[in-house]
């Protein structure tokens, strides 16, 4: 602090406990190797031990250096972070640009009572990280304090915050129901589990075989009969998928709570080992999305995601996630609760799209398969390959039917609702006031069929939400009704077949 600027707060260092955390986390990465070495007891020579010691020393020194050179401060106007010794970097975010303060704490951090604080502006320029600032790490209390301080200011700063009623106390919108665990195997996390186990196993085999042959295990494995391997595989994979996905679910969603905090923030807290806290300003919410992937849909489950600005990217790296995989009804209820609507617009009755859209989907499902089959028929491969390709037809046709069944849209007093997707059914309710432009597109075949795809562009979520394959007139009418006056000046009614407009094309 200098005399010239007495009110400038002092530069602060990160929490000194990081000196222990950084090396420990690095070591955690080597745990499998260490475990293997300990179990098998490979006799390392002196040089190996020296290298190991040197490695640990380097990690510790790097941590000390990072701690010594990293400083941050929060002034009334900005949050600033300086780091680096050789490559100095200084980052500064104006406080009125801050849109999110996310707090996460991994197991090692929690052991030392620390949290990582990630402050974001919500702008997402491709490949540019300057809109985000990560404090790794500060004490858990400091992180929580910082979160409140930076976000409260946001709510106070916003005079035209009128759309949503702000409650004076925190209200709980959703908590975890352990019966939802049944949805865990129906999500991608089951695939993730299988992949992770396979990857870890492969790595272990690789590392171990470098060290020792594990008493000829590999030889025994390669001698086992084929049917045994296949059977083991058939049993192991589902078991791993089941157990793994349940474990992932429990780790990710333990203690899940979705709370509306005073000051207009939605806060999601969850996590068993790694705790996560994500705050979402309500005035940045432009809508909600209910997603039903095929398997989850088969189990009558769904996920709910916020469509909000400033999350970065389509689903904002999961930051918009409002709910674990949950029963469909609950997903819609939470969607409504987040939007402060009694009846969720996502469960509104939707208008079906023209039957021509079904024809388009069927053509797209059938033609590529027939073409592929024809090519195989001509190519120098056995004839059964061409026939086998035709076996895909039932699958693609079913997907086409599903895609058509999922098409729909509706316009309510405040929302544009649209649904589409083959396999993954995606229902979006977008606030009409959040629409900041329209894109009407028409492919050659759509033009022949008299259809268009009307896309509402928005600053939130994926940036564009589509009403796919509607009659041209219907699509344009929906767009004009949703945001009166925006598309209207560029529309024309044909009177008796002749267009009354100044410049008519062709």
């Amino acid at each position, binding site marked *: 602090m200098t005399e010239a600027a007495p009110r400038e707060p002092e530069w602060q260092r990160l929490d000194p406990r990081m000196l222990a955390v950084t090396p420990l986390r690095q070591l955690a990465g080597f745990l499998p190797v260490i475990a293997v070495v300990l179990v098998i007891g490979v006799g390392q020579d002196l040089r190996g031990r020296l290298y190991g010691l040197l490695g640990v020393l380097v990690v510790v020194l790097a941590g000390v250096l990072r701690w010594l050179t990293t400083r941050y401060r929060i002034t009334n106007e900005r949050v600033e972070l300086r780091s680096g010794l050789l490559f100095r970097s200084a980052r500064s975010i104006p406080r009125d640009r801050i849109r999110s303060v996310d707090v996460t704490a991994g197991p090692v951090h929690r052991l030392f009572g620390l949290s990582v604080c990630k402050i974001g502006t919500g702008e997402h320029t491709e490949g540019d990280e300057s809109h985000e600032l990560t404090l790794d790490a500060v004490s858990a209390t400091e992180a929580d304090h910082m979160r409140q301080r930076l976000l409260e200011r946001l709510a106070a700063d916003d005079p035209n915050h009128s759309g949503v009623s702000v409650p004076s106390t925190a209200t709980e919108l959703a908590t975890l129901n352990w019966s939802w665990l049944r949805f865990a195997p129906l999500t991608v996390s089951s695939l993730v589990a299988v992949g992770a186990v396979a990857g870890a196993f492969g790595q272990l085999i690789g590392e171990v075989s470098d060290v020792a042959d594990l008493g000829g295990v590999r030889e025994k494995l390669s001698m086992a009969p084929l049917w045994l391997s296949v059977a083991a595989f058939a049993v192991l994979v589902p078991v791993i998928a089941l157990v793994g996905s349940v474990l992932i679910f429990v780790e990710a969603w333990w203690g899940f709570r979705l709370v509306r905090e005073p000051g207009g923030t939605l806060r999601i807290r969850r996590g068993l080992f790694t705790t996560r806290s994500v705050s979402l300003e309500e005035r940045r919410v432009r809508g909600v999305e209910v997603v039903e992937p095929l398997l989850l849909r088969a189990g009558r489950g769904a996920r709910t995601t916020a469509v909000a600005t400033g999350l970065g990217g389509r689903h904002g790296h999961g930051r918009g996630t409002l709910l674990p995989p949950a029963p469909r009804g609950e997903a819609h209820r939470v969607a409504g609760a987040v939007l402060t609507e009694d009846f969720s617009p996502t469960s509104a009755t939707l208008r079906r799209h023209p039957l021509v859209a079904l024809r388009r989907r069927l053509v797209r499902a059938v033609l590529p398969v027939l073409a592929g089959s024809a090519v195989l028929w001509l190519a120098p491969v056995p004839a059964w390959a061409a026939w086998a390709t035709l076996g895909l037809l039932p699958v693609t046709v079913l997907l086409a039917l599903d895609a058509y069944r999922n098409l729909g849209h509706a316009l309510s007093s405040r929302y544009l609702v649209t649904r589409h997707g083959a396999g993954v059914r995606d229902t979006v309710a977008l606030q009409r006031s959040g629409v900041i*432009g329209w894109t009407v597109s028409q*492919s050659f075949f759509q033009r022949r069929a008299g259809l268009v795809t009307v896309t509402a562009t928005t600053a939130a979520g994926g*940036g564009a939400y589509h009403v796919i394959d509607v009659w041209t007139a219907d699509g344009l009418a929906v767009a004009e009704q949703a945001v009166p006056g925006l598309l209207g000046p560029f529309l024309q009614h044909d009177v008796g077949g002749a267009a009354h407009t100044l410049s008519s094309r062709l």
Partner: protein
Amino acid sequence: MRGSLRLRPPRHLVSRRAIMWWTAQAALEVAAVLIPLVVGLIVWGGARPWLAGVTAAVAVVGLGYVLVMPRWRFRVHRWETTDDAVYTSTGWISQEWRVAPMSRIQTVDTERGPLQQLFGLATVTVTTASAAGALRLTGLDRALAEDLVEQLTYTTQATPGDAT
């Protein structure tokens, strides 16, 4: 009322020189595919009879593309600005109409590639807060583009709105 409502084309055509620009672009694209094929044909021509067929097919389709696409595009590409919005139509086989209200416009940029400079053209890009909502007015006369940018910048500054 079905079928009676449609989008009218935006008021202004792009510069006629855009046809030449698109033709040059298309010619370069086709050449990028055709030249390696021809080289291949010269190097091991006799041994690859199917290569001659592929080359001929590419040449025919490419020629058609070079001749048809620019003229078709010229009939589709149009733009218009009103006090409240920017309106464009683009494409040829697939077409697209885009509208962005003045109050939501964030930036207005011009951009001139080497080919565009050659033909005295410029592209004006109008971005909104949406990651998917940018409007591109391609093949405008350079002087006109500069005026347009100035006018749009002025209008968007005068129009209230937080752009999101």
